[in-house]
């Protein structure tokens, strides 16, 4: 009997500290598999965020640097400019990329830095206990919006792909989800393409992954993937937002 599917080399055997059913583990696997399939493991440098994925360096079997909250695109810019031969990617959540790190994200994108950004959007601040994030949906209940997000008071959900699509320096933007096997395979294709773009020197590539956060949403893992498919993707439509030829 032949083993056809198992953990890839770029992932360590360390058990993840994520909650049961969390999408981060799936996205870690997709990133690791993409890197291994492109043969980049020996020259990849990842930048871990502040957030649930703060321990990403414990899970990836290549060099990973930690950055202050929201600053991975700035750190990645520095590393890529000093070592242009390396493949540099950031792995960020929505509190990191779309809240405290908005300036770094937009300016790295606008400069067209040749880096890859994996943006995990789970519509709240996961690590600190499910507070409202810029990406929280209208009417969504969180720890800090117990009656649901009201746009009059808290504004509207920030759509990062749409926001960045107007910038000249951006090469590739796609929004995907990991709610079912079909979407996961599609997410893998997008992430692999974002790394291939960097190898080809095309410029800034960002893949936004809609991820389930069952514990902070107060749902079972089964209900959380249903919520992603029924509600989340309606507010954040999947698709390619920019693909520079």
């Amino acid at each position, binding site marked *: *009997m*032949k*083993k*056809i*599917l*198992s*953990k890839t080399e770029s*992932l360590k055997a360390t*058990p*993840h500290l*994520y*909650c*049961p*059913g*969390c*999408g*981060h*583990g*799936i996205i*870690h*696997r997709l990133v690791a598999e993409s890197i291994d399939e492109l043969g980049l493991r020996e020259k990849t440098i990842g930048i871990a965020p502040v957030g649930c994925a703060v321990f990403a360096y414990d899970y990836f079997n290549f060099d990973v640097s930690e950055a202050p909250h929201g600053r991975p695109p700035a750190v990645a810019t520095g590393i890529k400019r000093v070592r242009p031969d390396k493949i540099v990617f950031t792995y960020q959540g929505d509190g990191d990329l779309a809240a405290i790190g908005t300036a770094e994200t937009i300016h790295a994108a606008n400069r067209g830095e040749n880096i890859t950004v994996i943006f995990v959007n789970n519509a709240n601040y996961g690590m600190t206990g499910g507070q409202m994030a810029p990406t929280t949906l209208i009417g969504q209940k969180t720890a800090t919006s117990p009656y649901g997000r009201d746009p009059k008071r808290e504004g509207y959900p920030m759509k990062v792909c749409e926001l960045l699509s107007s910038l000249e320096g951006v090469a590739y933007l796609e929004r995907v989800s990991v709610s*079912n*096997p079909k979407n*996961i*395979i599609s997410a893998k294709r997008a992430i692999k393409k974002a790394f291939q773009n960097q190898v080809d020197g095309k410029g800034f590539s960002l893949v936004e992954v809609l991820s389930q956060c*069952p514990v902070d949403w107060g749902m*079972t*893992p*089964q209900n959380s*993937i249903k919520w992603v498919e029924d509600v989340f993707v309606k507010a954040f439509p999947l698709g390619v937002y920019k693909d520079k030829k």
Partner: protein
Amino acid sequence: MSKIEIITEKCKGCGLCIIVCPKKSIQLSKNFNKAGYHPAVFVEGADCTACGLCFQVCPDVCIEVYKDK
């Protein structure tokens, strides 16, 4: 006969593999693992086509898929 192996000590019992398995060959164990979860287990001798859907959805990458020939 194809089969899967689940590293039960890494499993957190989220049950995502159970809902995607087309042959309904995975269930939650009645026993606990060291972390205190009821891990998913492959039903001994159950049907498996090695489709890999359970591997795709597993957030803890604790499933290994074996294909017969």
